[in-house]
């Protein structure tokens, strides 16, 4: 009787936050929001100080950053348009991370994806727009996928460090792109800015009705959700996480680690390749050096800030898309160089990594065990 009464008193009279069971259950999840959030605030504070040294008012900075990123419908659309490729390039880092691999070559896969998507579109030019678009998706995914699969294969079969090889592949991809757009694939009419021929206005993928945000955002959202389901709700994803946790154990239970690595790397590169395809089919209309805009590198930051979780990538990509969207306004209103966005991204990255040391150390989140 007495215990029953005590239980009911507990249940009624105590707020859930004070219940040690609540913290034990959700403490870890709270950490995953609280710590990166704190790192973000710290990074913004340091950047504010940096801008103050530069002679600008940090409060103006925060206002224009907010205004340029989320202040108006126009800036929201700009933010979401930039978030689309970031979601996809972040997946290029986050998917291999499940296997314990650090792939930072999303930019290269994006460029190769853009090239192969353009090549596919030009190959089937004249067909119905739907067919051209499907060809571009297939081309982009296969091109980008094979590019990162190369890094994964080299790691698995030759022991080549995938971080370095994937980054080297970025520079090789850029050289291939420059070579092709200035040589074999060049449109003779593109004089000042060497480019491939245009894929044609009819074949562009267009905007989501009622907005200026192109359909690439939907591609990104679908890919992120699909990646989440793949990693957390399928046996394949479970096997990948087992292999990422302990590769020896994975081999003992008979998992084919090589096939896991190749498949995951293909999917990861495919996502980045899709980002390249979207940049061609929704923004540029052709392939040229404009595509190397750094989405691949920002995607690495997105993946780390989201702690390699495919679902968390979506809000983080929107946040960083917002930061880059506000860059133009910072340039015009505050006279800050366009590289200020890069500086802020670098500071955020440093803070997020340093904050890794905090996990499991925040006293009040530990609960009682």
């Amino acid at each position, binding site marked *: 009787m007495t215990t029953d009464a005590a239980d009911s008193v507990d249940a009624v009279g105590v707020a859930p936050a004070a219940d040690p069971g609540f913290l034990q259950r959700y403490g870890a999840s709270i950490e995953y929001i609280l710590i990166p959030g704190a790192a973000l605030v710290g990074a913004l504070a340091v950047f504010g100080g940096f801008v103050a040294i530069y002679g600008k008012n940090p409060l103006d900075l925060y206002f224009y950053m907010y205004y340029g990123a989320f202040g108006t419908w126009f800036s929201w659309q700009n933010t979401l348009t930039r978030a689309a490729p970031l979601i996809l390039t972040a997946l290029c880092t986050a998917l291999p991370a499940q296997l314990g691999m650090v792939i930072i070559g999303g930019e290269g896969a994006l460029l190769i994806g853009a090239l192969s998507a353009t090549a596919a579109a030009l190959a089937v030019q004249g067909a119905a727009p739907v067919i051209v678009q499907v060809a571009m998706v297939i081309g982009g995914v296969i091109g980008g996928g094979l590019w990162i699969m190369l890094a994964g294969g080299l790691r698995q*079969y*030759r022991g080549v460090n995938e*971080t370095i*090889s994937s980054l080297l592949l970025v520079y090789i991809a850029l050289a291939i792109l420059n070579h092709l757009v200035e040589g074999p694939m060049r449109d003779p009419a593109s004089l000042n800015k060497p480019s491939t021929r245009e894929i044609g206005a009819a074949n562009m993928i267009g905007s989501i009705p009622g907005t200026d945000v192109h359909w690439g955002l939907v591609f990104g959202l679908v890919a992120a959700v699909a990646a989440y389901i793949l990693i957390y709700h399928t046996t394949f994803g479970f096997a990948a996480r087992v292999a990422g946790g302990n590769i020896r154990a994975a081999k003992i239970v008979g998992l084919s680690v090589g096939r896991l690595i190749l498949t995951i790397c293909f999917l990861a590169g495919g996502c980045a390749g899709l980002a390249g395809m979207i940049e061609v089919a929704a923004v540029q209309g052709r392939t040229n050096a404009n595509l190397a805009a750094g989405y691949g590198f920002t995607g690495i930051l997105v993946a780390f800030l989201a702690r390699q979780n495919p679902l968390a990538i979506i809000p983080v990509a929107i946040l960083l898309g917002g930061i880059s969207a506000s860059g133009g306004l910072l340039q015009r209103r505050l006279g800050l160089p366009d590289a200020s966005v890069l500086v802020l991204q*670098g500071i955020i990255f*440093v803070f997020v990594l340093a904050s890794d040391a905090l996990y499991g150390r925040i006293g009040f989140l530990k609960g009682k065990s």
Partner: protein
Amino acid sequence: MADGSIGLWTVPLAVFGGAIRVSTPFLFVSLGECITERSGRINLGLEGTLVMGAMSAYGISYLSGSPWLGVLAAGITGALLGALHAGICSLPRVNDIAVGIALMLFGTGLAFFLGKPLIEPTAARLPAIDFGWWSDVPQLRAALRINVLFLVGVAIAPLLYWAFRTTRWGLLIRTAGESADAARAMGHSVLLIRLRATMVGGFLAGIGGSFLSLFYPGSWNEGLSSGQGITAVALVIFARWDPMLCLWASLAFGGAAALGPALQSVGVTSGYHLFNAAPYILTLAIMIITCSPKRTLTGAPAELSITR
């Protein structure tokens, strides 16, 4: 050749001159990274350090009129970035590779930000020593105009080789890299050893950057470094963490990087961009050949996360 034309000899000569010119940043970054990696930590952020070094050297040289002050400033900037890397890495559960990626982006961004006003002005450049005074062939004279920093780098490589083998400092760094526990048992702070090794590594990488802006190409712009830093990090693996092999590998890479411009100078322009990618392709090819999934690399520091 009375008319001074040396025909196709231009290409090997330009590659030779280019090997010396272009290899200098590779040399400094790889020697710096060699020290850091020997202590058991990898700093992928040297790409950012290189760009920051280039920017600060150019800025200080422009403001002070002395290129050597610029070189010093570049080294100090690099050491500070190294200290930042080591400081974050000494926190528990922080991955040194990830920190390196962060500092690569941070260093590049900061250099572009601070370097905006430096794109226009011209700074005092580093001098070169003319070893080709005896020749009448202009291409040969150009190839033999050797910069002082290259000679410094060539001197550092054997010095480092000797220091690793015989000095107390070299032994401490190697101990920290082979077994942190052993270094701790000897009563040394592994974190402190690695902090110093990373700072010295950053110092050298920063100097490598100063070469880019103060000698060749010899100006500051945002396209100055395109992956030389990361190529040099890969080069250390290929050089088996041996400073002398770093020297030879840097020369080979410099030659590869000079191939594109050399061919262009004799009129071979097709595939220019592909030839420019030669150092990266060469790095990748060498890593494919020398790495193996079965064993760890000979000479690899046991504490290094990249080889485990």
